[in-house]
């Protein structure tokens, strides 16, 4: 096959974003290419600094972990660079470090991202190594064992972190019975049990170009990508991807948990199931999240719980949307003795949204921030590349960036209330990590502590 010719034919679309407002010039144009092996390639130019970002997204997240093999997707992703067909661990890392390149891997519930930032002068060497890591890993036994030890060590370190403890307990309670329930990195037992053959099987099933999106952005031109980078990507062969049905969590009576830990400040987490990423409720939920808990002093939670009641010093909310479901959580930090009272105040605010439409001024402010901040948020090439890859993965379309302000601005007070009615109930998951005796002894106006299921962190 004549690679150059075929690539020229495949270049499909090039467009300019149509954001309105002062930032309109800030978003670069994007070119989309689909290679013969069905790898989707997105390219954008940003010549402000002499560096290039590569962001590869593969549909191989932890939701695909088989039962009792939690952590397999994460371990596979982090083991790619342990050695390849042609290069050892030392050769790979010496080369990366000699270029001063950054190489990062992140495993999420739905996908894995592998990113590299490299100086322009080293781009083609960097791409060569990047494709070698992705296409030809060998998962050396000793190195995989060591990687497992690293992950197990990190799990141990996380046990000292109240926020991580709360997040893990919250997800486990909220997504019970679904693959989203387990921590992405797995647990001590499951990680210990994973073997090299299982990595191989997972890799062979999901690490395919037809299951991936590659974004290349920065100090590079589409012509350079076409002539010098695309040829390095064509040796990666497509194969059918197994279709696994991922069990969608369903709302049910959910637990309230206190995890007893001797800390002076309690971490309180309250929340519920939320919309999938490509669901119709996504934009109303996004605006709702902004109004409730964007984190600054003007958000409803901060006004009511921090400024008016002085109960918590920080209250934020977070929306995480995945392929099949999502979660919404409010996170606050307060004195142990105020934890239960704070949880009650949060619940009241959630219920208020169900019965009272949001004020027009609050809605307007949230929309202005979300639309206005969008280009600034993605002004760094790496952030923009990540955003493009995710938009492609979730099937939001290449024109998503152009549509984004329209979708945000279309949200009405009724949409917000409908969303609150649909998702918020009195059965929220509540997790508190704090000193149990302080909470129970001194809480004011809060529910009786026995309502909570008390646990202690695993040793």
């Amino acid at each position, binding site marked *: 096959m004549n690679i150059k010719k075929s690539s020229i034919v495949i270049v499909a679309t090039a467009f300019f974003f149509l954001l309105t*407002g*002062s*930032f*309109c010039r*800030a978003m670069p144009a994007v070119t989309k290419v689909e290679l013969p092996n069905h790898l989707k390639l997105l390219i954008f130019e*940003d010549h*402000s*600094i*002499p*560096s290039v970002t590569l962001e590869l997204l593969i549909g191989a997240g932890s939701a695909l972990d088989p039962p009792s093999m939690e952590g397999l997707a994460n371990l596979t992703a982090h083991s790619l660079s342990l050695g390849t067909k*042609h*290069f*050892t*661990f030392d*050769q790979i*890392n*010496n*080369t*990366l*470090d*000699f*270029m*001063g*390149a*950054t190489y990062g891997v992140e495993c999420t519930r739905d996908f894995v991202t592998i990113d590299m*930032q*490299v*100086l322009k*002068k*080293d781009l083609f*060497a960097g791409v060569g190594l990047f494709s070698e890591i992705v296409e030809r890993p060998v998962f050396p036994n000793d190195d995989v064992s*060591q990687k497992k*030890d*690293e992950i197990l*060590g*990190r799990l*141990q*370190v996380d*046990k*000292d972190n*109240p926020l991580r403890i709360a997040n893990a307990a919250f997800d486990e309670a909220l997504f019970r019975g679904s693959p989203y329930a387990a921590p992405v990195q797995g647990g001590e037992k499951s990680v210990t049990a994973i073997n090299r053959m299982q990595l191989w099987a997972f890799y062979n099933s999901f690490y395919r170009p037809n299951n991936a999106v590659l974004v290349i952005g920065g100090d590079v031109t589409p012509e350079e990508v076409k002539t010098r980078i695309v040829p390095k990507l064509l040796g990666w062969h497509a194969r059918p991807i197994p279709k696994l049905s991922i069990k969608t969590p369903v709302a049910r009576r959910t637990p309230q948990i206190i995890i007893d830990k001797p800390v*002076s*400040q309690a971490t309180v987490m309250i929340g519920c199931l939320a919309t999938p990423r490509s669901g119709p409720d996504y934009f109303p939920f996004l605006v709702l999240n902004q109004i409730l808990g964007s984190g*600054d*002093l*003007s958000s409803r939670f901060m006004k009511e719980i921090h400024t008016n009641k002085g109960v918590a*010093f920080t209250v934020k909310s977070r929306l995480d949307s995945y392929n099949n479901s999502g979660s919404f959580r409010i996170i606050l*930090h*307060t*004195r142990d003795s105020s934890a239960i009272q704070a949880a009650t105040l949060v619940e009241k605010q959630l219920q208020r949204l169900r019965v009272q439409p949001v004020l027009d001024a609050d809605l307007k*402010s949230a929309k*202005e*921030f979300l639309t*206005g*901040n*969008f*280009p*600034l948020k993605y*002004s*760094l090439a790496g952030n923009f590349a990540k955003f493009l890859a995710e938009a492609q993965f979730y099937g939001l379309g290449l024109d998503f960036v152009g549509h984004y302000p329209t979708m945000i601005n279309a949200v009405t007070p009724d949409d917000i209330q409908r969303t609150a009615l649909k998702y918020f109930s009195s059965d929220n998951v509540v997790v508190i990590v704090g000193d149990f005796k302080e909470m129970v002894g001194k809480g004011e106006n809060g529910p009786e502590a026995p309502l909570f299921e008390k646990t202690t962190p695993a040793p």
Partner: protein
Amino acid sequence: MKAVRIFVLLAMLFLFPPFSLAGAVMFENASEARLANGLKVIMLENHQAPIVSFQVWYRVGAADETTGKTGLANMVERMMFKSLGPMSAQEFIQTIRRMGGKASGTASHDYTCYCDTLAANRIGVAIDFEAQRMRSLTVRDRDFRLEKMVVRQERRMRIDDNPKSYLLEQLYAAAFQSEPYHWPAMGWTDDLRRLTIADVRAFYSKYYHPANAFIVVTGDFERKELLARLEQTFGKIAPGEPAPTFLIEDPPQQGERIASIRRPGQVGRMVVAWHVPNLQSTDSYALEVIKALLASGKSSRFYDDLIRQGAEVLEISAHYDLTSKNPGLFSISASFLQEKKPEEVQKAICDELELLKTNPPSPMELKKAKNQLEASFVFKNESIISMASKLAEYEIAFDWTSISAYIPSIRSVTAQDVSRVAAKYFTEQNLTVGVATPPPPPVTTGENP
């Protein structure tokens, strides 16, 4: 065959360095001007996107506090976001947010800064508000009391309940005795209780004026137009007197100091630190190179020897800030499994430092460290916000123009410099060690209850 190719690739990268000094030219168009009242303005135009970062830096921080009133610089910075006036701080934040921008403040030991990033055509909003902030501070007692409570809670969460931060706080308190880096920028718990609104107002009056501040602007602006606007606003503020500065120096350390902490935890933690100079000494560049040699990337000495080969530690990192205003610390932080003995971990770390003294890096290893530092310099200054902050940090430490010396100075470091600087500073006499380990399990009698 591939292995040969990768060797050739490395050799080519080594023998033929890039023609462009990628990092060195990033700040070459920066310039400065002074308003009529003497206020310095540092500018760097970048028209890539229609945004600006407008930052006002005050030459005051926790290092200017006094015993018994620590945490005051941070408290003043926090109260700036509660201020009233022609435009209240809350109105300003709302306005910036409606435009999609962001406004933030930070107080460290060495400085306090206010950083606004917004659409270029709305820069006037930030200029007007920051000039108001420099002119006067109006705060309510109720807001002060609430904020004080918030800061105390935040301190408990970020430091008291965080094993790593708590250990670092104790380490600094041991390494510095009379110098102000002895106390945390957030202040000691008891001192926070003692702060009053009168303290806030007095601190503000003493330090917040043009003679003790400078402005940094990066992004999409036009110099002449900007300076005219600044002259109309900041230029009308009385210059004030430069705040008195005292250089308080500890006498040279006479031997190893240890901060030992017993607290519940799943892993052991250690910080090993030595007193070192800042960028006012050329040794600072060799220290940067040493930081990269030891801990940058998975081919670094620490990763290879202490994690991959030795399994001595779970994680390890090296920290050094050459732009601290006064000489600071070169520190190494590690966590380790409880079954490891802390003294063995310390020995493994110190052995690596000793090796630098006797076994200089090879030309290839040295070049690799320099490449990492140069690439990191480029990557970290990708945004106009970080470019402005970097210029300001150099201005605080010495002079913003010295930023242009960074890449050439890194390139000039030799293997002999590495050994010499390691021998000079990484001595037992100059060492402070912080160790946090869980308390021993209670003694049992061996009988079932």
